[in-house]
């Protein structure tokens, strides 16, 4: 019976769980004035499993990592962010990060499913027969997911910072982690994401040197520019040159730029041979 469920159904169900996790957080805060951390974490974990099922169905259909169109890229980014949250959330008990992660994942998954053009028409097999390009793509999009968490911690930092500067630290702001915790979390996540993107670029760089025709120069340059921006941000933060809300604004802004570079993936990729329809396994 489960085999009859389409990938999009799994993914919609995952979006529903993510949305429920976020909504539950808001309700708990409004009614109880405290987080419903366990329930939110559970809903995110269920959503994560459902999304994994959807991506697996699609991955089997295309015979590789499902990163072939805008829907899949956004889905994979959301999945990456929740992967890291499910690890970090347990280790550090940052329950409020769960609400933000659930909101981000719900947004990415729902929008990617709702925009008809992002998953319409014949799906191209984007990696040809080169597993190294697939590895690069998987690493790069995973790093985007981690950059998504950087953006979330930045957003939380900005909210916390504003509440303290405006002398209004109560209400929902009281649930946020401390300024220093958010700052340290942001720096660590930024370092992690940059390292993953560095590895992704190293892989594609080697491929570019050996088989330049298989690599989209525009996409390579866009990703390299994004990587450079994140490296500069990390260095400036570590040297104390870009701190507090300026660092947070940069972290949030760069993620938006990262999501924009994702749109370059499809149009700029050299057109490989068409592959079979991937909607159904």
């Amino acid at each position, binding site marked *: 019976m489960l085999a009859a469920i389409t990938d999009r159904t799994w993914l919609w169900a995952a979006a529903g769980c993510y949305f429920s996790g976020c909504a539950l957080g808001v309700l708990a805060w409004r009614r*109880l*004035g*405290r987080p419903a951390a366990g329930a939110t974490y559970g809903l995110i974990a269920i959503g994560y499993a459902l999304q994994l099922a959807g991506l697996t169905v699609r991955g089997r259909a295309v015979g590789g990592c499902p990163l072939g169109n805008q829907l899949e890229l956004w889905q994979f980014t959301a999945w990456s962010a929740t992967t890291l949250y499910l690890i970090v959330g347990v280790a550090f008990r940052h329950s409020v990060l769960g609400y933000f992660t659930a909101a981000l994942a719900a947004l990415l998954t729902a929008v990617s499913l709702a925009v008809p053009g992002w998953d319409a028409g014949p799906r191209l097999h984007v990696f040809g027969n080169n597993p190294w390009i697939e590895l690069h793509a998987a690493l790069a999009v995973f790093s985007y997911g981690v950059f998504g968490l950087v953006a979330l911690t930045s957003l939380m930092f900005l909210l*916390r910072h504003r509440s*303290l*500067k405006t*002398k209004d*630290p*109560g209400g929902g*702001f*009281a649930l*946020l*982690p*401390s*300024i*220093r*915790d958010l*700052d340290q979390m942001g720096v660590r996540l930024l370092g992690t994401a940059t390292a993953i993107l560095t590895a992704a670029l190293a892989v594609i760089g080697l491929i570019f040197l050996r088989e330049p025709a298989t690599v989209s120069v525009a996409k390579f340059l866009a990703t390299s520019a994004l990587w450079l921006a994140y490296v500069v941000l990390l260095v400036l*933060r570590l040297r*104390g*040159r870009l*701190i*507090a*809300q*300026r660092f947070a604004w940069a972290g949030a802004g760069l993620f938006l730029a990262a999501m924009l570079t994702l749109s370059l993936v499809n149009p700029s990729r050299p057109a490989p041979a068409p592959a079979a329809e991937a909607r159904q396994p």
Partner: protein
Amino acid sequence: MSTPRLFVVGATHHLAPLAVRERLSLDAAAATALQDHLAALPGLRELTVLGTCNRVEFYGVAESADAIEGIAARFCERQRFEAADFARVRLDLADEAAVRHLLEVAAGLDSQIVGETEIFGQVKAAYAAAQAAGRTGPVLNRVFQKCFQAAKHVRTHSAITAGQVSVANVAVELALSIFGGLEDARILLLGAGEVGEKTARAFLSRGAATLTVSSRSLERAMELATALGASALPFEAREAHLAEFDIVVCATAAPAAVLSCAAVAAAMHRRPARPLFLIDQALPRDVDPAVTDLENVFLYNLDDLAQIAERNRAARESELARCRAMAAERAAALWRAVAPQVTAAPGGAPAAVAAPEHRPASA
């Protein structure tokens, strides 16, 4: 009254002014002694005495109204307090209302500072003492234990304990929202007066490990530093060493600002990534207000802290009605469960609690 009743009788801050409460107050030893003394009253099956700075309450199960009146009379006699005066401030509740009152007391809903949590421990201690002395029985055991559970439920399912309501604790709470923990936060106290000392003690009680005291009188600074287990710093060196601190509590009586914007900016230049929390409790203000515009600097003055404390207090008050409804619902259910035990004849009920021996009232 012919039927046995679960009762509470006593005096609380609601009706009894401070001067009366002073005369009626019982410390733990006195409460235990009085409990032993009252247990000999005819018709009194169970008893627990709760004594705090805001209330003296006797919870029990009595066979008749005479036993309850006997408690009031012997208590007034022991405290040398006029019975007529006591009647004017007396709390007198029975059965379901008594259960509800105990639940509200344990949950902090009846406290002067609504939502305070200290009372929960005090009620538990009073019950433990009575139980250890053999003064409680099946009714009070069940009522107290269920009330503890219900009080925890009310507290965890509402915002009744959210936010601090004293200026010193608000300052500590703000520091926690900036630094997460106080274990590795370095604190400088400018001024050795009472206000600053109170705030410093609040920080120390919440885990602050490194405190330095600086005052215009080095002698006074050293004296306070010794009392607080801190170190002292010459007042003239405060700005030069400012970069070494994360939290600065300013409470001097200086006629002008003792921390200039330039000094704070210079300190932040040496430690840009570490936040600096400035608490200005002085009047006139000790810190140049312009530091608010500096990155990573958070300045709160006396008005800011007082306003937050007031907002928190108002937020707790706004939760009261919902908490009381929760408490009433649970109290009603609990009363339905224990009522048969209360009304059961002593012979049919589990063993009644008798006093080991009668002691004179003036013991």
